[in-house]
């Protein structure tokens, strides 16, 4: 994957976040590539991971903005967020249920802080430190033990609601799909009918021209001037007929494949999105 592709993909994946945030993130990664030593593009892309992962990281950052508790969610329980990071921890530690782990670390932190605050107070400097410390870290202490579980419940509910919505939406979606398919069919038929009408018209003009030339030749012997005029007009008609037919055939050959391609792409799009991209 090239850097342009990577950035394009990233931009595509972030199309639903606010424009300013997306542009800022894209600018950061664009610069990141530009600042990297030349010839290391592949290496950088490999190290950054998939655009999906980078997008998830950016999104995570935005999400913690909204909750205005950036610290509460991945404090000392480990910054390496389970969702995007490789596991490099010992097996026994990470194999436990996540919830257990979080609770465990929450209480550890709680105790640790209590101990620290309760006993280790001495010296003027220490007091000043604690003052600042409290202001800065307080949200952490409150958030760390409760927030993760609450969030999990919210996640379950969200998934449930999405499933329910999907089930409810099925009849409507089927109808919508039917309507869309019919509309496409109608458009295709209309185009074909128009093409057929023009072809028929051209053919008729051609046939009429041939017939009129025959007539004209007959008239030529009675009234040469009129005969010549009829012949001339008929030939023009024949030419016009051939031209129209050729034009329609050319138009069909030129326009149909791209249209069909476009149609196929539109239909395939929703199926592609869910799967892994090449």
């Amino acid at each position, binding site marked *: 994957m090239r850097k342009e592709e990577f950035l394009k993909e990233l931009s595509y994946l972030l199309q639903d976040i606010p424009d300013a945030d997306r542009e800022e993130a894209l600018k950061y990664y664009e610069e990141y590539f530009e600042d990297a030593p030349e010839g290391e593009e592949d290496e950088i892309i490999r*190290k950054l991971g998939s655009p999906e992962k980078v997008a998830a990281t950016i999104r995570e950052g935005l999400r913690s903005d909204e909750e205005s508790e950036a610290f509460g969610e991945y404090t000392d329980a480990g910054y390496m967020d389970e969702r995007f990071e490789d596991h490099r*921890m010992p097996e026994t530690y990470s194999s436990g249920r996540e919830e257990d782990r979080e609770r465990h670390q929450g209480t550890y932190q709680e105790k640790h802080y209590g101990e620290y605050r309760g006993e280790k107070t001495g010296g003027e400097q220490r007091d000043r*430190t604690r003052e600042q410390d409290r202001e800065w*870290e307080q949200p952490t202490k409150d958030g760390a033990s409760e927030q993760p579980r609450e969030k999990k419940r919210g996640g379950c509910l969200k998934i449930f609601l999405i499933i329910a919505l999907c089930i409810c939406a099925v009849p409507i979606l089927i109808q919508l799909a039917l309507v869309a398919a019919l509309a496409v069919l109608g458009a295709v038929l209309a185009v074909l009918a128009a093409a057929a009408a023009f072809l028929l018209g051209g053919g008729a003009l051609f046939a009429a021209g041939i017939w009129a030339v025959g007539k004209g030749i007959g008239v030529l012997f009675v009234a040469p001037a009129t005969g010549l005029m009829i012949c001339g007009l008929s030939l023009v008609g024949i030419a016009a007929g051939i031209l129209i037919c050729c034009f329609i055939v050319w138009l069909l050959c030129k326009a149909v494949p791209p249209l069909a391609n476009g149609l196929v792409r539109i239909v395939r799009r929703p199926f592609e999105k869910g799967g892994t991209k090449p």
Partner: protein
Amino acid sequence: MVFNTGSALLDAIVLAVVSLEEEGVYGYKITQDVRKVIELSESTLYPVLRRLQKDECLIVYDREFAGRNRRYYKITEKGSAQLALYKNEWQSYSSKISDMFSGRIER
């Protein structure tokens, strides 16, 4: 690495890296410098820088470099205070643990 890097420690490292240059440091350089001391995915730092910026510990400005604008991150006064606090905490934390490991701690 077996030890997780908590977000406070990561913040401290980033602030330390940025504070070393008076003129500020750009994103790629920060990532590379941080990666010298801790293992970390290259994409982890963007949200961290963004948050530090939002918390007014860092400010950004664009400076021209090789015909384009490069974004530099610079430490603020609040960031420096925060870094001092982190350093202090780290000193006591790491020395206690080191003492414990080497059996020097009194029971």
